[in-house]
């Protein structure tokens, strides 16, 4: 005749099982080759299974710059302007750096945009990263127009992701993603034929 275990024993055993399972799951999702990440689909939010492969195997050694230019109603194209910004490192960043997430967001979204390169134009334009960045630029253009930095009246813009080697000025910029022409008004038809972007 077996004695029933105390409820706390059952609970603590369950806690141990959760910890053990969680640890093994973490262990199995750290392979240097990301194709072994199959179990990560169990964590669609991307928070519960930690990714310990910091800056590895291949660290990013370039900054991601998001650039854009506008096209006026007369067909005139503005010079390229940077939409992303990176602040210079300061001692205070060791304690307080609210801009860290925005800078990393440019990295993250830049990687997503570059991954769109193999898609057809229509599929590309439907990708959430593409639409998000297009809208980001749309607002950036408006802000500059309001500030008087940019001639108002443009009907479309184009954006691109450029990688550059930061303080090491010996490298050449790499143009890794170039969008099509995006209308200023979301969903609007573009009147003129788009120029060849290749």
């Amino acid at each position, binding site marked *: 005749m077996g004695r029933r275990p105390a409820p706390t024993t059952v609970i603590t055993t369950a806690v141990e099982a959760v*910890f053990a399972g969680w640890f093994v799951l973490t262990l199995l999702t750290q392979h240097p080759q990301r194709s072994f990440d199959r179990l990560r689909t169990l964590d669609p939010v991307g928070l519960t299974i930690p990714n*310990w492969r910091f800056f590895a195997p291949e*660290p990013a*050694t370039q900054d991601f710059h998001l650039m854009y230019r506008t096209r006026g109603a007369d067909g005139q194209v503005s010079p390229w302007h940077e939409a992303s910004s990176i602040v210079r490192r300061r001692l205070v960043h*060791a304690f307080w750096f609210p801009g860290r997430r925005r800078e*990393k967001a440019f990295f993250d979204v830049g990687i997503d945009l570059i991954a769109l390169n193999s898609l057809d134009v229509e599929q590309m334009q439907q990708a959430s990263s593409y639409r998000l960045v297009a809208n980001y630029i749309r607002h950036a253009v408006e802000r500059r127009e309001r500030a008087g930095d940019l001639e108002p009246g443009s009907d479309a813009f184009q954006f691109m992701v450029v990688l550059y080697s930061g303080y090491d000025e010996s490298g050449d910029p790499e143009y890794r993603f170039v969008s099509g022409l995006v209308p200023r008004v979301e969903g609007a038809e573009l009147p003129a034929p788009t120029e060849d972007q290749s």
Partner: protein
Amino acid sequence: MNARSVLAHLPPLRAPRLRAITAGIGDVLTAVSRPRTALLAAERMSAVTQVLSSVEYLFSRRDQRPGGLGDWTYGRSAMATRFPRLMPFLDRVSDEKIDNVVHVLRIGAGLSLFLPLHVTAHRAPANAFLAASALVLHPKNHYGSDGSDQLAFLVQTSAALGRVGRGSPRAAEAAVWFLAMQAALSYSVSGLVKIVSRTWRTGEALPGILRTRTYGDEGLYRFLTAHPRLSRLAAHTVLVLETAFPLVFVLPARAAYGVVGAMAAFHLANARYMGLARFVWAFMATYPAILSVVQGRAARSLTAGAHRSPARLPAIVAAVTGLLAVVGVGSALVRRAGIERADGPEARRHRTPSRNVLSYRLRRAPGAEALPLVVFESGHQSSATYWHWYGEELAGRVDTLFYSRAGYGASSYFSRDSYSLQESVDDLVDLVDAVAADRDVVLVGHSLGGYLVTRAAERLGSRVTGIVLIDPTHPGEVAVSAVQAEGARMLDMSMRLVAPSLRLGLGVMLDVPPWVSLYPDEVAARLRAELRDHALWSTAKREWTSLYQVFRAPVGSLPTTSARVDVVAADRTLREHPHQRALDEEFVAAGADGRLTVVDGTDHLGLLADRAVVTRIAAVVLQHTTPRVPVEAEGAR
């Protein structure tokens, strides 16, 4: 101010002072060695990360509003496909006002953990709230989130779970072990995955990261480039410390403290030079747990086991991992046996002079004896199975020969010579001679198979009446394209790791590419088994080594042939690698009156896996078996 002048300004360190300091540290360490105390320290440090994070979010509201990179209007579309049912809830909490309230509550919960230690009732709910709210906020803050968020979530969840069971010491001890093991895993994984990379081994990675404005620092970057030896030493020290970190669990206590202290200094340096402030708190939150384990071991050795029972969690984890390894290796063996049988009764075997045994299928069509035999050569990393739709499409119309190169599918590699692609060409020629005697042949090759058939055609001579190359590999493609060269370098690295990992039983962990599901279920299952079998990857690696030599050699002209050469390319391949078109045209020009056909809406593997695409390409192949009646490939341009 140099190091010497810094030392001059410090008060002399005398022995009594040193003893007082170490005694003080010792007291603190003893205090944190109790699991409950360790959890209190961990949750507080982790709360700093989360409070800081919420304050940061409140300070950067603009990023969440329309036109920001955290604008939920766009971010939600990725989530909507994954969690359709959660969308009403996620939409509601993404409202700015509610988002503000959640962040303020998180700050409150985080600060409440700093109440005096005897105030305990609220702690588990505060831990749970910090963890749950992180989970809810995360989809919205997808871009810009980082490892410190994951770590803080881990610590708060562990602290909550460590308090269940009415203060059972076992739950707290499991939580402490869990955090200590996760921290050790995080360092060692981070180190091991760096060792895999050439960039890290050569020491290029550190100045490479520091030169960026996002994660670097100009002063330190210039200093390290001026002192390359020191730079390499620093990078290698990090590699060694990270990789060897789990040794803290077996090292003498003092040495373990030294390692933990060195990693703390590493995080402080990262905060200063890389701008990673939240990581300091996130990682240090695990240190009380590590120190508790180290101290607990020291205490146990002093009191001969009376103080605490042996840790249960590491034992459970070891048992589960061991069991999974046995299951993994076992299923790898079963998988291998299945692949060897999978070609079925229709398959025959042919031993070539290189000793390799090739499994092949010759399918005859009624009345096609007078037509050429169509021979299919697979690409890199693939077997005869990949041609399934071609078999269906051409059944009853022409005679076909499908086989796997030695090492792929059911074909075995027994050659004792050092491998080069020439051996595969010889095997193919020998198989064609054995199966087709002196009959005419049409050669069809995909990817690397395309390159191989052009070389086999040289040997087979005038019996080759036609060649169809599907997205063929060109020996010059790495030389002309930087992107392909980068791809080749990455492939070179990954090739080395995959086969050993699959031998270790990790096959189930391997993600299978989506095109596999374009095949019928039975074929897809077989492709999955092949992709998760080490043989495919060790064969791929062997071929890759030889192919890489071809790529690096000066590009000569392609072998010319009197046969007509048609090339079929996927539009996405050409879009991704614009140089490829000229190379494809070069293949066409090496033969007689062929042409380049571009198939829209598909990619490199879609040319095999997509039935509708295969129907079009099969029409191109059939032109070669009935050469007098040219047929336009429908829908292609």
